[in-house]
């Protein structure tokens, strides 16, 4: 755990220096960081706990809408609305989990698609609150300590802090009792019960935490976008991208989702600028390669080989 926290600290230091070194590449870095945070949050439920959600755009959207509506209609600062969004997302996660966690297999995943769809329809139809299909525009933001939150540098640091907090959370959980409960339930629910673990309660806790963390990143995303449209923010594509990022990087690993974000979002951006039309094709091939040759994801596969090598060495000596 100490090793991972030190690693995180080093990365954080690099991140803090980043805007000074690459002042022109902030937008893409913000995307990478937000996706790293979202995918890591997703992974708490999807990877560590084995409950694959295809509806995490719901929580991104909740965060973004809370921030935008809070600011434009009620004059509430983003940090308050992000906290509110986190609580609301956790409550939504609780109820959704309570309804669906008795479903085993793919049914939970399928049902999560509906959550984002329902929220999208609410956002489109409740025009008085959400601006309907046109969306909400974020025209003003408070300036805490004189910091302009519309500046990319400030947004970069918010995204960096978000990603760091989420990864740190997972590092701590991975060593704690809760982390083992998550994995036990993922591996075998009956066997987990035989160890005194309540599978449903475990899944609910994971879902609530995952949802809350994701929505905080969603709030930052709202500030970054400054213009929130329901069909973009609640899109299935976004949910799938979050899940894919974690899966490609390595489910149930500390660094996998972040590596996934770097590869998918970073490479995606590179391809978009270099190959123009062909970028989706190359993106697709990249995903195919990982799925075929690294079924546990990039970090998952590396970690496994490392463990086996270690064990082989120990067995020899």
């Amino acid at each position, binding site marked *: 755990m100490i090793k991972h926290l030190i690693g995180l600290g080093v990365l954080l230091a690099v991140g803090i220096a980043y805007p000074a070194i690459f002042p022109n590449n902030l937008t893409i870095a913000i995307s990478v960081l937000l996706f790293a945070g979202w995918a890591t949050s997703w992974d708490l439920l999807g990877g560590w706990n084995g409950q694959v959600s295809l509806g995490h755009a719901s929580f991104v959207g909740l965060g973004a809408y809370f921030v935008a509506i809070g600011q434009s209609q009620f004059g509430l600062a983003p940090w308050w609305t992000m906290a509110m969004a986190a609580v609301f997302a956790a409550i939504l996660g609780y109820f959704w989990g309570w309804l669906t966690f008795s479903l085993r297999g793919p049914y939970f995943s399928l049902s999560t698609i509906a959550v984002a769809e329902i929220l999208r329809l609410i956002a489109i139809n409740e025009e008085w609150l959400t601006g309907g299909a046109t969306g909400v525009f974020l025209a003003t933001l408070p300036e805490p300590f004189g910091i302009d939150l519309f500046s990319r540098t400030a947004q970069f640091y918010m995204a960096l802090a978000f990603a760091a907090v989420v990864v740190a959370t997972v590092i701590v959980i991975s060593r704690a009792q809760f982390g083992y409960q998550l994995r036990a339930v993922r591996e075998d629910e*009956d*066997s*987990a019960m*035989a*160890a005194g673990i309540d599978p449903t309660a475990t899944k609910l806790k994971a879902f609530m935490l995952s949802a809350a963390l994701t929505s905080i990143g969603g709030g930052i995303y709202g500030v970054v976008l400054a213009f929130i449209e329901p069909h973009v923010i609640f899109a299935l594509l976004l949910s799938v991208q979050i899940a894919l990022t974690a899966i490609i990087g390595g489910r149930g690993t500390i660094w996998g989702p972040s590596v996934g974000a770097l590869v998918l979002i970073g490479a995606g951006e590179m391809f978009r600028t270099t190959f123009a039309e062909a970028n989706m094709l190359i993106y697709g091939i990249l995903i195919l390669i990982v799925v075929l040759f690294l079924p546990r994801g990039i970090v998952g596969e590396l970690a496994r080989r490392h463990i*086996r090598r270690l*064990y082989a060495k120990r067995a020899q000596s």
Partner: protein
Amino acid sequence: MPNVLRADGITVKFGGVTAVNNVSLSLGSGEILGLIGPNGAGKTTLFNAVTGFAPMHSGTITLLNKDITALPAFKRTRLGFGRTFQTERPFEELTVLENVLVAAFLTVGRRREAERLAMSVLEQVGLADRAHQPALDLNLARRRRLELAKALAVKPKVIFLDEIMAGLNPPALREMIAFVRSLSAQGLAVLMVEHIMEAIIELSDHVIVLASGEKIAEGTPQQVTSDERVIEAYLGTD
């Protein structure tokens, strides 16, 4: 001998089929109760009903005079049940130590102490040298012992062993028999489902014979193995 576990009138139905019909049993601390019967007799079903893994149609279960009939399986574990599964079910992606750690966390919340408990249980079952190996890589005999370690790490008062002897070679079988005896010597109540008569006869204080979901005989190993109904159930009549 004071009762640790009592099960009265256990009946389990699957649709119209009665898998277990009105079976009762009781078990004191340090006692070993063997549950035998031909295939399909309802042994594992009874076992699952008592441990909370299969729904019961009727019956009551008490653990240390506390009615636990309505409690889900994980709460029964918390009150003192430990069980193994007939087909071993390790948490495959975890190491051997982590597998046991999951169970050890039930009674000790702190990581360091939980790890110590898990390690001592692994030593008890002879898997300490495998602690850091992925559970997936264990062979059958070691997987069995891992099942046992997981069941013991919850610090149970009653341990349920579902065919832990099956498929073991003679030396491994001897070891397992000695191990189960050592558990009862420590005061644990043991309920075991077993096909291997050698183990049943050697270990059981008391044997219950099931056939077609009914209790057809009960008594010491010697009594039941000479019981005509039992021989009939096993060998059939012509």
